[in-house]
């Protein structure tokens, strides 16, 4: 375990959110003090992806007599489990956001946003809150034909959730396209808008007691599959001898979209796919890898899947996969992809030649929008890269800074070819991750003494030399009878 203080300096301030260690225990019937007022609020709900991204831009006023730094964001109990992340940003950079956990019976949970500078009494400032909510889009109807359009439904609230009085607010909704057959009409002229943007509001003063106001339900066409990786394992292996870094990713994929009404017709699929119509099935995934990727492969339980294409040049590297069958709603597919890279673009070495810094993308999923239930990132360092010192000091030899909050982490020894001790490895787990976290960087610092580098040839050298010595000794045994 590394100290949390170290983290603070290493991580983006936002990444300490949700980390269980920073949860606050507040009383069950906690109500945030009414020290703020939202004088203007604009909520934008983006439902173009398989998860819902909500951005709340607001002007907050401090109406108390003291400077205030703690702004609370209420989240209803049923939703908080689905929040992938919540970030807060002010005019001059990010603020720290923490979950404040209550007694689990409480109906409303709060996130606490710690403003980077306390807001003086009577002053106002701008605040942006962004959050992503997964597993909240349901297909309606749940069963469709193979070539039918797929519709998803989302239910939310009329007003933006706020623990404070909001004087003026408006909600804008961004749909994937202009096909919105059903939406809640609150009164004539509300909502307004056409095309792929709808607007609810503006509304006059709303107090926190009104909760979200009325429920709004929207049903809209969704032309892409609802891709969910129920599990993903990413294996990153560093080789100093080979000058190589190997990536391997295992996916357990499912489609949460509408299920098939009838049995799947291969004939119909083949005849319509010629026109390449939008479909609710996952028929292709594209991975945009870091340029320079080599030796890509795509396999599943059966073996190599030949329906893949890998195009790599100095500017880009694309791995296009076609699963063995189109993955319709409720269907699953699991597969493995992997590729190699030259190590020199990812690893740097200190002047003394013993300290190394590895900088790799934390996640590199498909370009298509996806959400992940559970991810496991394993970084395998070379054998003999020194283990962290167990005391919580800054002298710890292996350090890593994940870009997103982790659910759990552990260090262990991974055993593979030509290993005597086992390779120092880091296993990081995170849950409920969305594809916005792709391409964020993971930095690992470790110490790898030159002596440790020569362990592998030395072990073989010793073994072979022992054989030579033994054979020499055997050859010197005099087995002649008499003289």
């Amino acid at each position, binding site marked *: 375990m590394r100290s949390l203080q170290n983290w603070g300096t*290493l991580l983006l301030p936002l990444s300490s959110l949700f980390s269980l260690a920073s949860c606050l225990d507040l009383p069950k019937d906690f109500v945030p003090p009414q020290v703020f007022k939202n004088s203007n609020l604009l909520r934008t709900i983006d439902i173009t992806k398989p998860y819902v991204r909500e951005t709340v831009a607001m002007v907050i006023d401090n109406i108390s007599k003291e400077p205030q730094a703690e702004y609370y964001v209420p989240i209803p109990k049923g939703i908080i489990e689905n929040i992938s992340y919540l970030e807060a940003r002010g005019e001059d950079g990010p603020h720290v956001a923490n979950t404040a956990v209550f007694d689990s019976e409480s109906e409303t949970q709060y996130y606490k946003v710690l403003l980077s500078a306390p807001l003086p009494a009577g002053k106002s400032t701008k605040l942006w809150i962004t959050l992503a909510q997964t597993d909240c889009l349901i297909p309606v109807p749940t069963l469709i034909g193979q070539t039918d359009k797929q519709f998803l439904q989302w239910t939310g609230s009329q007003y933006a959730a706020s623990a404070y009085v909001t004087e003026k607010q408006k909600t804008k909704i961004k749909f994937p396209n202009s096909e919105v057959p059903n939406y809640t009409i609150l009164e004539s002229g509300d909502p307004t808008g056409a095309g792929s943007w709808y607007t609810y509001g503006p509304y006059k003063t709303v107090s926190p007691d009104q909760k979200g106001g009325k429920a709004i339900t929207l049903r809209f066409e969704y032309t892409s599959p609802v891709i969910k990786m129920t599990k993903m394992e990413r294996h990153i*292996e560093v*080789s*100093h*001898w*080979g*000058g*190589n870094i*190997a990536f391997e990713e295992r996916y357990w994929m499912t489609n949460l979209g509408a299920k098939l009404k009838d049995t799947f017709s291969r004939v119909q699929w083949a005849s319509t796919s010629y026109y390449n119509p939008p479909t609710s099935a996952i028929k292709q995934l594209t991975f945009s890898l870091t340029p320079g990727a080599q*030796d890509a492969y795509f396999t599943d339980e059966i073996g190599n899947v030949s329906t893949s294409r890998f195009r790599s040049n100095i500017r880009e590297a694309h791995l296009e996969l076609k699963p063995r069958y189109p993955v319709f709603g409720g269907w699953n597919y699991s597969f493995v992809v992997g590729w*190699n890279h*030259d*190590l*020199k*673009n990812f*690893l*740097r*070495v*200190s*002047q003394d030649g013993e300290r*190394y*810094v590895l*900088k790799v993308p934390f996640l590199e999923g498909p370009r298509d929008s996806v959400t992940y239930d559970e991810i496991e990132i394993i970084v395998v360092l070379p054998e003999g890269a020194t283990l962290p010192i167990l005391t919580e000091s800054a002298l710890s030899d292996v350090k890593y*800074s994940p870009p997103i909050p982790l659910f759990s982490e552990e260090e262990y020894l991974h055993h*593979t*070819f*030509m*290993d005597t001790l086992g390779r120092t490895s880091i296993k990081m787990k995170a849950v409920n991750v969305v594809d916005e976290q792709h391409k964020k960087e993971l*930095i690992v*610092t470790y110490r790898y003494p030159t002596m440790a580098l020569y362990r*592998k*040839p*030395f*072990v*073989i*050298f*010793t073994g*072979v*030399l022992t054989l*030579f*010595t033994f*054979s*020499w000794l055997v*050859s*010197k045994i005099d087995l002649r009878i008499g003289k």
Partner: protein
Amino acid sequence: MDAEWDLMKPFVPMVGKEGHLSVAAVLMLTGFFLTGLFSINKSVTTAPLLAIPASLALGFGSVYLICAVGVYV
């Protein structure tokens, strides 16, 4: 940490990927050749002179050979 990254120099392996096979071949062949010489000449003076270089060549050679075939250790 990014500042630290900028100060450091990129990692350069001792032998690049394209050189693995040739280096492995040279080292392994040298190793086997010296092993052959060792097997026909086991006098106290020449044995260590053949066995130690042979072991070294086979030790490094096998590490590069496994890298050359794509198992990066």
